[in-house]
């Protein structure tokens, strides 16, 4: 199967038997979700052939996948539920919708009876009458799975179903899945980043890497975490592209610590007891999967999320940052992950952006001096290497890389010296990436402290001095970039080494 345009998948051969529980693993962007989208019929543009019970089928619509008994439970549970409807109505929604009878009667009692039967069968205890919006994330997840499997289900696709579940709930889910596979001979595709869970429940494992299937192997008692990690990285463990010349050759031998975070937690428990420090002139990596809490850490340090506990020290003095404005005053800068939504003012021009965080310096008695802004902007555009017509060009017309340069430029203009980069290379092409790396290094060389959060391990290895790994909102390891490699880093990123301690 492959895709036109961006080729997310290439010549994937995939086979699954009834009653088999198959893990599909791969790093972010390996093509897992694309493959699952094809199976659930939302990607009709695939090429290649799919057979179901030896009969060729065409998964061109979700309805077609539905007819074949392919059920998908997506990671985003809220998109699949009606928050104001009761539990039983959500559970029976497909039946309500597909009811062929012309009767207008909405038989609540019957629906409720059916729903109660289903939940007892699956041993899920939920109040049928409460609206779904009052449920916890885990309950919603269980409800969604129950909804998918109570009808005829031949292939069940679970996309990171355990991300929100506690250990006990995970165990219950696994029981359900095992039962389904054994008694009803349902094939199950299980996508997870948690290797321990794969070892626990799966019969076999398919590894995807850059859109290709690199290996499929049975999971036995002898299969260890290391084996899977190695296979995930496959032959892909190339030497990192770090140039040897760029080392800690900074002027200052023992640079002072500029940012120190101690025991930081947020109110929603997305950030748990996080401690780290960044010295002047240092680029520190924050490695973690999507959803591990990188964005939350950056935003909590920046004052954009409420802090639950912990202290933040800037240049040795403790600061109490209640909002981003205060963080900016202390010289902290954030380059947010979702550039379109959080980083840029799409309709405004480049000069406007470059002065947005430092407008006060271009003003006399709060009257803006436009000439000064324009002159400053064109100087900065040259320095950053932004490819554009002139400073009056709206930022939405720039490429991703150039937009990112403008966002960074905004903070250079504000003379920030602590930079928090949250996935800065998203939507940036290869050429611009190198320029941005150079820019980030230059910032550090001039004495800034840089935090670089990313899920891309090779990126982190090529740009940072030190790396903290993050799992489920917790820092799991601190590694020296010089002495680590892609394998070790990935091991920490996808593995809960604190497992057992937070039961």
């Amino acid at each position, binding site marked *: 199967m492959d895709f036109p345009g961006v080729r997310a998948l290439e010549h994937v051969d995939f086979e699954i038997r009834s009653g088999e529980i198959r893990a599909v693993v791969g790093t972010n962007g390996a093509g897992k979700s694309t493959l699952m989208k094809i199976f659930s019929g939302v990607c009709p543009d695939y090429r290649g052939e799919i057979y179901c019970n030896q009969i060729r089928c065409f998964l061109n619509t979700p309805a077609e996948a539905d007819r074949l008994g392919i059920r998908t439970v997506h990671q985003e549970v809220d998109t699949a539920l009606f928050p104001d409807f009761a539990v039983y109505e959500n559970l029976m929604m497909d039946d309500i919708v597909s009811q062929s009878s012309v009767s207008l009667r909405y038989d609540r009692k019957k629906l409720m009876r059916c729903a109660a039967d289903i939940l007892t069968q699956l041993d899920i205890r939920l109040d049928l009458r409460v609206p779904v919006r009052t449920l916890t994330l885990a309950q919603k997840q269980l409800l969604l799975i129950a909804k998918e499997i109570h009808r005829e289900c031949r292939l069940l696709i679970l996309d990171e179903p355990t991300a929100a579940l506690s250990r006990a709930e995970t165990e219950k889910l696994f029981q359900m899945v095992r039962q389904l596979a054994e008694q009803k001979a349902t094939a199950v595709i299980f996508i997870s980043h948690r290797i321990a869970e794969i070892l626990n429940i799966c019969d076999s494992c398919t590894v995807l890497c850059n859109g290709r299937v690199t290996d499929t192997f049975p999971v036995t008692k002898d299969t260890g975490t290391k084996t899977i990690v190695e296979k995930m990285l496959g032959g892909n463990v190339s030497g990192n592209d770090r140039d040897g010349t760029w080392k800690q050759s900074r002027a200052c031998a023992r640079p002072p610590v500029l940012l120190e975070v101690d025991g930081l937690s947020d109110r929603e428990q997305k950030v748990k007891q996080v401690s780290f420090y960044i010295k002047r002139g240092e680029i520190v990596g924050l490695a973690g999967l999507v959803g591990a809490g990188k964005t939350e850490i950056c935003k909590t340090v*920046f004052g*954009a999320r409420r802090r639950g506990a912990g202290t933040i020290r800037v240049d040795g003095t403790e600061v109490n940052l209640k*909002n*981003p*404005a205060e*963080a*900016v*005053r202390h010289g902290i800068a*954030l380059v*947010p992950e979702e550039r379109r*939504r*959080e*980083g*840029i*003012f*799409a*309709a*405004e021009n480049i000069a*406007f952006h470059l002065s*947005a*965080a430092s*407008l*006060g310096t271009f*003003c006399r008695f*709060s*009257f*803006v001096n436009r000439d000064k802004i324009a002159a400053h902007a064109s100087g900065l555009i040259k320095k950053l290497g932004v490819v554009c017509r002139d400073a009056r*060009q*709206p930022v*939405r*017309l720039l490429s991703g890389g150039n937009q990112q340069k403008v966002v960074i430029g*905004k903070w250079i203009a*504000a003379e920030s010296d602590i930079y928090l980069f949250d996935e800065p290379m998203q939507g940036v092409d290869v050429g611009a990436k190198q320029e941005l790396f150079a820019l980030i290094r230059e910032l550090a060389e001039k004495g800034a402290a840089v935090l670089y959060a990313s899920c891309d391990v090779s990126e982190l290895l090529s740009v940072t001095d030190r790396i903290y790994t993050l799992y489920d909102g917790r820092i799991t390891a601190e590694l020296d970039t010089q002495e680590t490699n892609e394998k070790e880093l990935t091991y920490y990123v996808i593995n809960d080494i604190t497992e057992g301690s937070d039961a």
Partner: protein
Amino acid sequence: MRKIQDKGVGGFLLDWSAVIAVILSILFFTFYTGASFLSPANLTNILRSMSITTILAVAMTVTLACDGFDMSACTLASCSGYVFMACYLWYGMSLPLSAAVCVVFTMTAYLLTLFLILVCRIPDMLATCALMFIHQGLGQWFTGGGAISAGMRLPGGAVPKRMSFETDFVAIGQAPWIILIMFACVLLAHIFLQHTKQGTFLYAIGSNKTAAALSGIPVGRYRFLAGMITAVFIAVGAMVVCSRNTAAQLCGCDNYLMPSLAAVFVGRSVGGREKPTALGTVLGAGLIVILENGLTLCAVPYYILPAVKGGVLAAALAAVYLPKRAG
């Protein structure tokens, strides 16, 4: 995303449609009515008619600049009018003192609007919709259910301290002064929005609230500032209306809501800038009043005119939202 440089003729016409509409309607009415449309007397008339709409529309412009919205601006203006008139007639305060009380009252009343929006986090549109009725009810409770005009007794039966209007009071609502006040408001709003740090920040918030917050702009504080400035312009509008009518009529300002909104949205589309500006707002108010005035000269009955105003509003909204959908 549509691109600036290759928007083509259609895009150009759409961006400048408001200006084109003004020019076309002037040409049309000049041809149709002969010299009477362009006579100095009628031009003064047009400027005078557009001044109240313009002042209230400028008030809304400031709020809309930071992506706020205020449907209750004109009902609040009615209330401010009652207070202004009561101070002047009932309690016999001097004109400057009455004006000062009116401004302070409007700003205080606007705190309620901002409380609902900033503290209770109600979306602007819904909060101000509720406030429209609150203003109407409370205002009439204050006046005792009637208008406030010269010679009328207080709701309690007491005799008002002042029985008639001084000339300076009446002058506010008449030809040279009312037009000068309008231009002063527009000029102040223009300087504030285009040339000060605070104005620039308001536009930044209007452009992308999250990005503004993450750039270190205290969004809530600036929304508050915008509200307070809006309140001042509302108070000015209310005073001009009172003077023009030489009375605080019941719900005397409420009917300016629609033309003011239309003026702001017409102004928003000017030049493809897609943000409300003071100068654009004047142009919008001008377009509406020219149409009204011209159609009246053409002997179109006055009771059809709301349809014309509504049509302008709909067209302006289409000019704002149409390119977005096409892009």
